[in-house]
């Protein structure tokens, strides 16, 4: 809050879909409070229809994003980190309020989130070398394998870690060239909304990321069964529902990242590449060699 007698201009918290900030088509909102239960905002409560619109947007954006050069994707993602840095104070305030952290712990979480984004930005043009290569087949062929993005990835973001956890699950989806539909933490959605604003003001094309605030329990089944979603990350699925969502996802042979056993992991730990590989396909190309 601003400490003088000026009346603050409050923000309307909206969804981020296809590069725009719509309210939920359902007209629904829900109350977001801080860790102590004080009112913070009314967030848009995304509906099934919003989720489907987000999938359409993500599918529409896939060709351009996956077809961009890896260098270009890396620069665009690095730019996101630059803009995040500019919103550092706002993120700290939201993370502290939502997660009930001291300001120093909130700052550490935000620092780590931005640094993680930079880390993933640097991955875009290394994946081909680390995960692909030429295959020495026993015959006169040139044969190579390379990683390619899976497509549209639905992400149920962690419920607890509202920024570092969010970035940790969804930056890898973007770095690998996929487009995403992300359902934020239900009770702590504000950093996700702000991240949407960051994305809108960096160079990420509209539709590449679609951020929905709302309830993973409500939206999870629709995203899990949606025929135009290629993969789903169930990290933020409610404990009792993850198995059901995974079953739904089986109907279209979706790639599934299960919710971590034993609750949310320590998001500050070295992530390795295991959050990127589930959203990458391997394409192998053969061509004869001859004169």
């Amino acid at each position, binding site marked *: 809050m601003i400490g003088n007698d000026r009346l603050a201009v409050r923000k309307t918290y909206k969804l981020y879909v296809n590069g725009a900030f719509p309210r939920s088509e359902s007209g629904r909102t829900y109350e977001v409070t801080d860790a102590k239960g004080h009112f913070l905002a009314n967030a848009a409560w995304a509906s099934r229809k919003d989720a489907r619109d987000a999938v359409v947007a993500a599918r529409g954006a896939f060709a351009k994003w996956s077809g961009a050069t890896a260098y270009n994707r890396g620069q665009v993602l690095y730019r996101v980190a630059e803009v995040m840095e500019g919103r550092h104070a706002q993120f700290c305030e939201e993370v502290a309020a939502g997660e009930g952290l001291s300001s120093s712990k909130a700052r550490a979480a935000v620092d780590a989130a931005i640094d993680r984004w930079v880390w993933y930005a640097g991955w875009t043009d290394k994946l081909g070398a680390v995960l692909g290569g030429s295959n020495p087949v026993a015959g006169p062929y040139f044969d190579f394998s390379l990683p390619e993005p899976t497509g549209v990835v639905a992400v149920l973001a962690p419920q607890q870690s509202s920024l570092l956890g969010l970035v940790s699950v969804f930056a890898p989806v973007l770095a690998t060239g996929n487009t995403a539909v992300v359902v934020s933490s239900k009770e702590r959605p504000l950093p996700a909304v702000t991240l949407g604003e960051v994305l809108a003001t960096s160079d990420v094309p509209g539709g590449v990321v679609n951020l929905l605030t709302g309830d993973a329990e409500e939206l999870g089944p629709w995203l899990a069964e949606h025929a135009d979603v290629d993969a789903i990350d169930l990290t933020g699925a409610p404990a009792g529902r993850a198995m059901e969502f995974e079953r739904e996802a089986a109907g279209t042979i979706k790639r599934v990242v299960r919710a971590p*056993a034993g609750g949310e992991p320590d998001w500050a730990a070295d992530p390795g590449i295991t959050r990127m590989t589930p959203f990458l396909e391997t*394409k*192998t190309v053969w061509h004869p060699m001859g004169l």
Partner: protein
Amino acid sequence: MTSTPFEYAPAPESRSIVDIAPSYGLFIDGEFVDGTGEAFKSVNPATEEVLSEVASGSEADVDRAVRAARRAFEKTWGPMRPADRGKYLFRIARLLQERAREFAVLESLDNGKPIRESRDVDVPLAAAHFFYYAGWADKLEHVGLGTQPRPLGVAGQVIPWNFPLLMLAWKVAPALAAGNTVVLKPAETTPLSALLFAEICRQADLPAGVVNIVTGAGDTGRAVVEHPDVDKVAFTGSTDVGRSIARAVAGTRKKLTLELGGKAANIVCDDAPIDQAVEGIVQGIFFNQGHVCCAGSRLLVQESIHDEVIASLQRRIGTLRVGDPLDKNTDIGAINSAEQLARIRELSDIGEAEGAQRWQPACELPAKGFWYPPTVFTDVSPAHRIARDEIFGPVLSVLTFRTPDEAVAKANNTTYGLSAGIWSEKGSRILKIADQLRAGVVWANTFNKFDPTSPFGGYKQSGYGREGGRHGLAAYLKGADQ
């Protein structure tokens, strides 16, 4: 068949090299044991002759096999020096090479595939897979999963009937190299080469329980997949069964890889060398009677060369020899089962009913056994069932395109994404189309090539995970953080 100046005398491979027992048990914990399920017969699809009676594994049998595998994982195979695990696999590779002809004949008898293919493709590639993964066993820290990758434990593996021994090798070799033990369920109609492989395991002195082979039908497979002490499930087969397996492992800690169906586009551009392309089209769809998940079953021909390609293709198909799988001159063998033959017939009839033009060469089929002539459908529209459904038989659906963009759009217009082919003399065009195809394997100016070093597997509903190469090994390992 059209008249030909070449008449071939029969050139049958002798089947005396194979000794098929009148009945087989299950291979559990290093021993052949009786199954408690109802035994079933394995039939030679070329003659309908019963080859042997094979035990069917019940849930209790599967449990016994999983317990044996768990013991071996904990007591022998897991703790073993990685280099020694590798040596066992090298032994297996060598034994497969030594007994290659025996395996080839047995495979052709049980499956119906031409001896030329079982002898030159299935068996040598199976041995090559063991040889390749043998070398990985003591180099796992270089796979890319950190310095201390660990095996998953007991792998439950269910394989199809189209490449019985080769699919066994694709599953068993990487699993063992990574330090896992396995329970393998071969296909109901083609169990015999897996049972002969059990004998190879014994000749190699592979410790008991490392490889367990439980024959049976769908229920046996389900018991393997659903067994609570299985850590990894690997399946090759239909997308429908793949779905039910993915559902069954949902909510468990089991890792899963699926190699499912396909409906590959084989794209022939107007600058392609027609004769080579025609050979590739034939290889793409008639290899193994079209019982190939990555078969080039949708031919996409550029409109301007359609008539020329089809005429040339029909001429070439007219020279294919359909008949005795053991004859070394045979190009197309028997359909694997009466059930599969019925499905091929049904879908072909639907193709005709929906308005496509069916063409088949004049060809005499043997009186007994399961046979289907090589078949080409023209005037196929993308909405036809024969352009969408996997037929898994020697049936080619021909569609046309005008521009490369249209070819890509049509090629990708499928829920599958296993493989694709491109024929063109222009390198930049090949690479651009290859880049745009949503398929796990793209063959350019060739088709249906396989190698243990080369990752294989699908996009979309053709499954997930890869077999072959470093990728195939990673599917059986976990990093320190997993």
